[in-house]
């Protein structure tokens, strides 16, 4: 466990030694802030007056906060491949992987360490994002349960993106190829959701397989343990595949 932490913290720190993590955090935060303001403005000027006096009207948490987290999930679909591409592909390209594989640590520790390092960045990103809806609590009553479900759902979604990206990064020595294939896979899973919902050929199986369907129920404030299990299986599956892939490299080429 100690070794996993050592690797994770070094990976996390190294992301901030290049402008990559800084610029990604800044740009994502800027775009999401814009979306947040737009939503908030629309709510205050248009929706709130129209909803006044109605019973069971959707509130701020339903309209602004959920939309913000949905957007965050969509944007990270494009951003996560850039974060995951370097994990193993860059080490391959620079031929630095022998440092880790010759050290007295196991492949699982290497993979978990790298994954944990990325999770720390995701955690940072989600908490920066959460500052925006949390600031609303100064002026209004938020549905904290709903917010917590959205935060947890976004974290799981991003963690599943990261696990898929980690695996694809272990397959290649070109970071760009890792990024493109990760983006393709994540986009495909989203398309799967769209095609599962399309009229005429809707399919429950497709919706179940896509990670977006599970994310949406979190955004509605629904904490279903089957969604949690889906994400955990998804993450575990890709982590095991990564470990197997790197182990195989030692055995056979």
């Amino acid at each position, binding site marked *: 466990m100690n070794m996993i932490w050592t690797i994770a913290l070094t990976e996390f720190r190294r992301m901030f030694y*290049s402008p990559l993590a800084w610029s990604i955090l800044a740009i994502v935060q800027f775009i999401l802030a814009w979306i947040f303001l737009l939503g908030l403005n629309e709510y205050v000027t248009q929706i709130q007056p129209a909803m006044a006096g109605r019973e069971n009207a959707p509130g701020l948490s339903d309209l602004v906060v959920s939309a913000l987290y949905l957007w965050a999930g969509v944007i990270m679909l494009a951003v996560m491949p850039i974060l995951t591409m370097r994990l193993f592909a860059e080490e391959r390209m620079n031929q*630095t992987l022998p*440092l*880790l*594989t*010759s*050290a007295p640590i196991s492949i699982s520790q290497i993979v978990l360490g790298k994954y944990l390092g990325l999770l720390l960045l995701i955690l940072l990103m989600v908490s920066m994002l959460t500052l925006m809806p949390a600031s609303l609590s100064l002026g209004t009553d938020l549905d904290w349960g709903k917010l917590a479900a959205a935060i947890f759902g976004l974290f799981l979604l991003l963690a599943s993106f990261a696990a898929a990206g980690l695996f694809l990064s272990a397959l290649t020595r070109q970071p760009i190829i890792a990024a493109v294939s990760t983006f393709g896979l994540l986009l495909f899973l989203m398309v799967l959701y769209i095609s599962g919902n399309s009229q005429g050929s809707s399919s429950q199986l497709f919706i179940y397989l896509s990670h977006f369907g599970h994310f949406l129920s979190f955004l509605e404030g629904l904490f279903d343990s089957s969604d949690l299990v889906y994400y955990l299986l998804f993450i575990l599956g890709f982590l095991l595949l990564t470990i197997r892939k790197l182990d195989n490299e*030692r055995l056979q080429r």
Partner: protein
Amino acid sequence: MESTMLLAAEGLSRYYNEHCAVENLDLHLKKGEVLGLLGPNGAGKSTTMQMLTGNLAPTTGSIQINGIDLLEEPRRAKQHIGYLPEQPPVYRDLTVNEYLDYCAKLHGLRGAGRIQAIHLARERCSLQEVQNRLIANLSKGYKQRVGIAQAILHNPAVVILDEPTVGLDPLQIREIRKLIRELGQEHSVILSTHILPEVQAVCDRVQILNRGRTVFNDSLTGVESLEKIFFELVYQEDPALADLEAEKME
């Protein structure tokens, strides 16, 4: 005798699909010995070194490091190995100190022991002047030295260096050779190279590989011309090439 044997590899073979890179290789290393691994390109030197450091599993054979089986207990055995691959595995975005600190942590060094180990490795590889500089900004020779520092940091019993002097200027080559000789006093060193004079300068014993097999394995005392032996052994199967080399030597 057995107690001073730090590395014993027996019957190592490695196949890449059908192609045989290393065949039935025995390699032994005593304490305080510098072994030169020689051979033409593609002879299996790098494959052998990758197997000895646990980066590549041999198809057959066994490897004992300091009495610990590398294949059975890789993590315990790897504690006793320091490895410098052909390309020094350095992170360009870290400073020398940060990098060495990370390597020390990876080898399980903690607290005061870690600081002392880093200090010692830095001193031995003459890295004090550049300790706070980014590795990306260092010259090739310094990167190579950082790589060597990483390999000797945890005071391993066996140090394995894959072509440590490639691409260095003559002055740096001399310094690295001096360092390797120093290392040979406390550690055991395996060194692979193409450069024959280098072997004669630093090695106690030489093992020549050709097409994955050992063709020569002896100490260098009494050897008049390593070059002659090398060409005889390596090119005997190819007379045309041997003639060409003989002409060159004259």
